[in-house]
C-alpha cells in the first residue's frame, strides 16, 4: 500500500470511476443521436409550427456531445477531484497524512495525477462512443483531427483538475471547493472579452475537437495549449505552496 495505490482504491471503492465513466459515456452516446434526430424531436413539441434545421453533419454530433459533457460532465469531474483533493478534511484524517509526510507535494501529486488520468480515460471513453455513433448516424470523422482534438481537450481537463487543486488550498470542504473551481472555470472564458486574450485562453481548447474536425488549422491551438500547460503547472505550484503553509 502506498499513496498511489491509495488513490487507485479511492477511485474504485468510492465508485468515482463509475460516475466519471457513466456521465461521459452517456453524453457520448446521446450527443450524436440527438444531433441526428433534433429536427424530429423539436417537431414533436412544436405543434403546427414547421421546424426546419440544416442537415446535421458529423461535427454537429460532436458539438452536441461536448456541449453537454463540458457542463454536467465537468461538474462531475470537479466533484470527484474535490473529493480526492480536499485532504485537510476531516482534520483528524489530515493529521494522519500531514504528520507523517513533510512535503505536501508527496500527497498532492498522486491525487492530482490519478484523478486527471481517470478523467481523461472517461473523456476518451465518451468520445470514442460519440465517434462511433457519429460515424454510424452522421458520417466519417477525420482520425488525425479527432486524436489531436482529444489530446487538446484532455489538456483542458487536466487544467480543470489543477484549478480544483488550487481551489482546495483556499477552501477545505469539497462543497466549497467545487463552486470555487467552477467559478474560476466559468470566469476564464469571460477574459476573452478582452480582445487580445481571446486566442490565448485555456477555454479555447474546449472547441478544439470540433474546430479541428471542421478544418481549423492545428497551429491555432498551439498558443492556448501552451498557456493551459503553464497555467496548470502554476496552479499546482500554487496549491502545493499554499497547502504546505496551511495549518491544521
Amino acid at each position, binding site marked *: *500500500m*502506498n*499513496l498511489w495505490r*491509495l488513490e487507485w*482504491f*479511492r477511485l474504485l*471503492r*468510492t465508485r468515482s470511476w463509475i460516475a466519471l465513466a457513466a456521465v461521459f459515456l452517456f453524453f457520448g452516446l446521446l450527443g450524436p443521436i440527438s444531433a441526428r434526430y433534433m429536427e424530429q424531436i423539436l417537431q414533436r413539441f412544436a405543434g403546427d409550427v414547421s421546424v426546419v434545421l440544416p442537415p446535421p453533419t458529423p461535427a454537429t454530433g460532436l458539438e452536441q456531445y461536448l456541449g453537454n459533457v463540458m457542463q454536467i460532465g465537468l461538474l462531475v469531474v470537479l466533484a470527484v477531484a474535490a473529493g480526492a483533493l480536499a485532504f485537510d478534511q*476531516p*482534520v*483528524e*484524517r489530515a*493529521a*494522519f*497524512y*500531514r*504528520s*507523517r*509526510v*513533510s512535503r505536501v507535494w508527496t500527497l498532492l501529486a498522486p491525487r492530482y495525477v490519478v484523478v486527471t488520468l481517470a478523467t481523461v480515460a472517461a473523456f476518451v471513453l465518451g468520445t470514442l462512443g460519440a465517434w462511433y455513433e457519429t460515424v454510424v448516424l452522421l458520417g466519417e470523422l477525420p482520425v488525425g483531427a479527432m486524436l489531436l482534438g482529444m489530446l487538446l481537450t484532455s489538456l483542458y481537463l487536466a487544467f480543470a483538475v489543477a484549478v480544483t487543486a488550487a481551489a482546495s488550498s483556499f477552501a477545505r470542504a469539497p462543497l466549497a471547493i467545487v463552486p470555487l473551481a467552477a467559478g474560476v472555470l466559468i470566469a476564464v472564458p469571460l477574459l476573452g472579452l478582452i480582445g487580445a486574450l481571446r486566442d490565448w485562453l485555456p477555454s479555447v481548447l474546449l472547441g478544439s475537437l470540433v474546430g479541428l474536425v471542421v478544418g481549423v488549422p492545428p497551429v491555432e491551438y498551439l498558443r492556448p495549449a501552451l498557456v493551459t500547460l503553464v497555467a496548470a503547472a502554476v496552479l499546482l505550484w500554487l496549491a502545493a505552496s499554499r497547502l504546505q503553509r496551511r*495549518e*491544521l
Partner: protein
Amino acid sequence: MTLPAPAAGDAPPLVTTRGLGKDYAGVVALADVDLVVPRGSVYGVVGPNGAGKTTLLSILVGLKQQTSGTLEVAVERARIALVPDTPSFEPWLTAREVVALARSLVGLAPSAEAVDATLRRTGLADAADRASGGFSRGMLQRLGLAAAMAGEPTLLVLDEPAAALDPAGRRDVLDLVSDLRGGTTILFSSHILTDVQQVCDTIGILRDGRLLFQGPTRDLLAGKAAPAFTVRLRPPLDDVIGALEAAPWVHLVERAGLERLRVTVASTDAAETELVRTLADAGARVVGIAPAEVDLEHVFLELTG
C-alpha cells in the same frame, strides 16, 4: 512556574522548546512554554480544557507553526507519530491497509509480518480485513495506535488517547503505553489524571497556555501537594467535620466515603499534634488515621485552581 525536567541519564532531551508561543488573531493559546521531554520518558501533558495541550502537540509534530520561541526535536519527521483524540482514516480502507499505508508513509516496507504483528499487538487481528468505516470509536483509537506504532516511531505523541474508551479499552491503551516505555519516547496528553499518574514518569501542567510545572511525577506528588490525612471513623460525621473545619490548621475537609474523611492541613506538625485531640474533643469514634496517599488530581487542582 516552570522547572527544568531532569534528563534521563546523560542523554540530551528529545524535545526542547524555549519561549514557545502561539496565538490566534491575538488570542493567546500558548505563552512562553519551555518544554523539555527527556529521551525515553513517558511525558504527560495535563491541563484543563482549553489549556493549550492540543496546540502544543500540534506544533511539536509540525501541524501548526509557533508564533514565537524555538522548537528542537532531535528526531526526523518520519520517526514522529501522532495519534489524535479521534483518529480518522479513509472509511473504505481495511485495518490492514491502514497499517501498511502508515508504514509506507514513513518509508518502511509494508511487510505482511510487521503489519500483522502490529494488528495483533493492538488487538485488531480479528478485524484486520474489515473496513475502518465500520469501526467503533474504541476500535478506531486502537487503529490509530496501530498506525502510529507501525511506523516504529522514536517519538509517539498521543492526544487524549483513552478519552473515548471504555474501562477495558483504557486499560489496554495504558498497558500498550507502558510496554513502549524505554524504547519510544511518549508524549501523552490527557485530562484523566489517574491515567497520567499511572503511566507517566514526567509531567507538565498547562493552564491558559502556560506551563505551570514540569518535572518528574514523583517530585510533583512529593513536593507540591499540601499534607493530608485520611481519617476513618464511625458515622455520623457531621459534627466531626464541623470541628475540623473550625480548626485554624485545617485547610480542607472532604468526604472520601461513608466512613472516611480526607483532611488537608497546613502542616504535618500541626496535624500530628492537634488532629487526634480535635477528633477526641468532637466525640469522634476513630477507626484509623493515616497520611493520605497523594494523588495527581489534588496536586493538579492546587496548581490550577
